[in-house]
């Protein structure tokens, strides 16, 4: 059933955020510490557990993947409600601090991604891309439709 997938996602989110709140409290921080990350790990664990026992039905999968596919539209809505006016009119100190840390962090990403071996990329990763992309890009789906074309 589809609703069970949605409920599984909801339960994972609620438990994760709750644990994040507890973690924040334990550390004496006025913020949620990694709640969403914990929720993601819970959901991954739930998926592995369900598929191990053969309980990962099409309905459950669809209930979760629908929301994964809504990710980009939700992010677009998020972008449309940012306080861009404040960002644009921040003045030089804001601009310098933001640009400086951005450039430095992009540089660090470049460095870190060169550490260790490069991943050839797996079919699971590509499949995830087409689900999260919500089939927004028809040309992105095309290579996935040709099985065996990109075996790592």
């Amino acid at each position: 059933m589809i609703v069970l997938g949605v409920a599984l996602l909801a339960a994972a989110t609620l438990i994760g955020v709750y644990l994040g709140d507890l973690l924040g409290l334990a550390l004496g921080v006025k913020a949620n510490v990694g709640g969403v990350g914990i929720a993601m790990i819970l959901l991954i664990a739930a998926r592995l557990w369900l598929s191990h026992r053969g309980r990962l039905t099409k309905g459950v999968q669809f209930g979760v993947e629908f929301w994964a596919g809504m990710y980009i539209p939700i992010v677009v809505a998020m972008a449309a409600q940012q306080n861009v006016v404040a960002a644009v009119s921040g003045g030089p100190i804001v601009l310098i601090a933001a640009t400086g840390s951005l450039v430095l962090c992009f540089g660090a990403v470049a460095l870190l991604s060169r550490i260790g071996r490069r991943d050839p990329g797996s079919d699971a990763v590509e499949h995830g891309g087409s689900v999260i992309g919500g089939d927004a890009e028809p040309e992105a789906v095309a290579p996935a439709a040709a099985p065996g074309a990109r075996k790592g």
Partner: protein
Amino acid sequence: MGHDIWHGIEHVFVEQSLVAAFAVVGALILVSNYAAKRLTKGRVHGSAIAIVLGLALAYLGGLYTGGKKGLADIPALAGIGLMGGAMLRDFAIVATAFEVDVIEARRAGLLGVLALALGTILPFIVGTLTAVAFGYHDAVSITTIGAGAITYIVGPVTGAAIGADSTVMALSIATGVTKAVMVMVGTPLVARLIGLDNPRSAMAYGGLMGTVSGVAGGLAATDPKLVPYGALTATFHTGIGCLVGPSILFLTVRALVG
């Protein structure tokens, strides 16, 4: 007559706010995909255009209403606020975890931790140096502005904890918001340059950039398959920043500037 029709439409939009937001965002993405295909011949992701378009509309909405929530401050478009708010955003981010390749994620675990540490310290150093360069000399103001460069949540949380005044607080938040917006727009532009094309680098990116909204937008605009890996590390970033900002980082700055 024309006025009545307009009024009626507005009424429906206000009453059905979330449904209206689905329709509006869908239309925005449709236009963006068309533009991506026709105007850029597919070189730019449709979602990248949609996000930039969303930011541009947020700017116009902010100018028009004078509010802080972009388009969502217009009553007929208030549903955008719910659709793109923290609740559904986090819900959708968690859903993307369903697509995570566990082996890939585990392999990059240590890299993610390293990225989180750097992603907290590097922006903080840049922020504090900028604050000092602009004439701030007290540890509280310097720390608050530096924390704002980590994310726009770490800034005010740290500032509130150590007693910063409201002008410094506003600067700190503005720095974080500007960074988030720049991450959204800049990521697809530099993605190839920084090797952001596989789960490993996405996890490093998430930890380094932090700001969940920036990472969420930046990866969506670059390549959807990278989203869950970047989000996995990014969601720990703000919490860690709020942990070390008012404690270790503040004490360090105070020890340095006296």
